């Protein structure tokens, strides 16, 4: 499996959706569902004179990670920015439903479930809803969210964010709702994209041409300090794979403790955080980094991931 070996050292940022899916699973174990050969394409794009893609920009399938079935969703930013329409949305919900049904099958074997239970990983590269089929895309987002709640305490769902487009729009809150968020420093996570904020609130609020400010606001390092990212990794497929392994090695209690939202206790914690936001009203992420005890916030953007992980102080 030389190809698989080569994928391991490949940049996650540069990798295609299919390369990420193949490389995250153990060598030779990935089986794609509804792949390009099935040719189920968007029925809506041709109406608007748009070209279709045979996988609708989302790779879905099952592989193994250390004998555990890993249900993988991988979004392709090179096709309409990774945006989600009817087919891509149904591929996401369809795959999560398969993982849930696999869990149901093993429900009477708790020991096997603990060690070899199914897990879902979503490699995000998307701005959310595909505007050409916006209504269907929006409805699909709600279905995915509903399924994430159904997976709670059963099937771990992990978010991987380290691709070019980042993870924005509706998919930004789907990532937040997962059990663990794994990012690289180049990963971008948010709700409203920089251009949209600038358009609605003005350049003073958010300058979408200021790349380093965007990176400080939405990038992996900031999200890691805020604990909106659980595991920060280097930019390679193998590093993300190790991140997945690390998250799946956690006990259900540890996994639950790392979540951002999904319980009344976490909401109360967030309400305190919002009170801090109101009091501080920071001009820049650096203000928050110093608040949490990072003495030299100016140095953080240039740090290597290794150096950052060794020295960064996070939200308690």
């Amino acid at each position, binding site marked *: 499996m030389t190809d698989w070996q080569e994928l391991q050292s490949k940049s996650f940022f540069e990798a295609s959706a299919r390369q990420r899916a193949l490389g995250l699973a153990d060598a030779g174990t990935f089986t794609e569902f509804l792949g390009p050969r099935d040719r189920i394409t968007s029925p809506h794009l041709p109406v608007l004179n748009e070209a279709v893609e045979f996988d609708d920009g989302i790779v879905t399938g099952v592989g193994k990670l250390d004998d555990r079935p890993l249900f993988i969703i991988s979004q392709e930013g090179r096709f309409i920015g990774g945006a989600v329409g009817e087919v891509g949305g149904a591929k996401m919900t369809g795959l999560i439903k398969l993982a849930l049904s696999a869990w149901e099958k093993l429900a009477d074997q708790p020991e096997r479930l603990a060690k070899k239970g199914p897990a879902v990983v979503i490699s995000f590269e998307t701005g959310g809803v595909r505007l*050409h089929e916006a209504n269907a895309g929006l409805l699909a987002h709600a279905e995915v969210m509903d399924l994430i709640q159904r997976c709670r305490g059963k099937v771990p769902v992990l978010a991987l964010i380290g691709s070019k487009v980042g993870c924005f729009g509706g998919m930004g809150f789907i990532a937040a709702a997962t059990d663990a968020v794994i990012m690289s420093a180049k990963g971008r996570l948010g709700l409203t994209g920089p251009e949209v904020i600038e358009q609605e609130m003005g350049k003073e609020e958010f300058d979408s041409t200021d790349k380093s400010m965007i990176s400080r606001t939405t990038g992996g390092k900031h999200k890691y300090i805020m604990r909106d990212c659980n595991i920060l990794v280097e930019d390679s497929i193998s590093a993300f794979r190790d991140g997945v392994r690390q998250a799946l090695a956690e006990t259900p209690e540890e996994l639950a403790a790392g979540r951002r939202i999904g319980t009344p206790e976490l909401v109360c914690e967030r309400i305190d955080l*919002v009170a801090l936001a109101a009091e501080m009203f920071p001009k820049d992420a650096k203000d928050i980094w110093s608040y949490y005890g990072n003495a030299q916030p100016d140095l953080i953007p240039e740090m290597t991931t290794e150096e950052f992980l060794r020295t960064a102080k996070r939200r308690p």
Partner: protein
Amino acid sequence: MNEIEEMNDTLVGQGRRAIDLIVDPGSFCEDKVPGWQPEPGYGPGAVVGSASVQGRPVVILANDAEAINDRFPVVYFGVIGLEEAYKMARTVYGVIAADKDKPAAEKTPLVLIVDTPGNGPGRVEELFGMNCATGAYQLALAEARQSGHPVVAMVVGRAISGAFLCHGLQAGRILALAPEFGTMIHVMPISSVSRITKIEPERLHELAQSNPVFAAGVNFFSRLGGVDEIVESFDAMPDAIARHIDALRAGEACGPQQRGSLGAERGGRVTRPQVEAKMAEEFAAVADSYL
């Protein structure tokens, strides 16, 4: 109010008036919700409280477009910001906890009155995780619905994109006032679709007649299964909400997955079930080597 007067009337930007039109007269107690007491002025763009609808005790979650949040300037005209989303989420969890030991038939219904143009778009919002805030409220609503609370959304004004996902699309049932009342459900208006696709708006309106998937509007959304029922007058809202609460109490299917089936039935989203079925078939062929 007679029908002719109603025709030109709208509830856009008038969340509090919508509450009055929906609940039994005098029954609304703002901030009186189980489990916590929101401080006065907290998350002012979101209104929560208890009330009754045709004699059924409910908890109301609504938007107030006239409120301005002094702490978060991006919150106005019905925007759901950080405080608003967590205020709503905490209210939902309070209701779940209070009814934890009650049988499904006695769990308090949640009525979402929807008139919101968006989630807080701002620097501080992104720094502190607006995605977490809207996600928190959605997970709370999904948990409430999945644990048996009837959750009914009534769209009285704007239900736009991510804000509709936040406040509406996790409901068990979604009702919307007819478009004559200015009701808006969309991700973006046709003019913006036109800019992106470079197709003239007139041509887009024509295309939308046969394919409702990109078009803005309550009726198109309904054909995709995104709206369960269109309500034809203000006066008909309480009865429609009560009817759907009773249907959900009786255990009728509901929620986002059910709206998927509805979308196929109404002909607006027919590919979705084919995709899911084909995937299940392909997995079944290899399942033994993975499980």
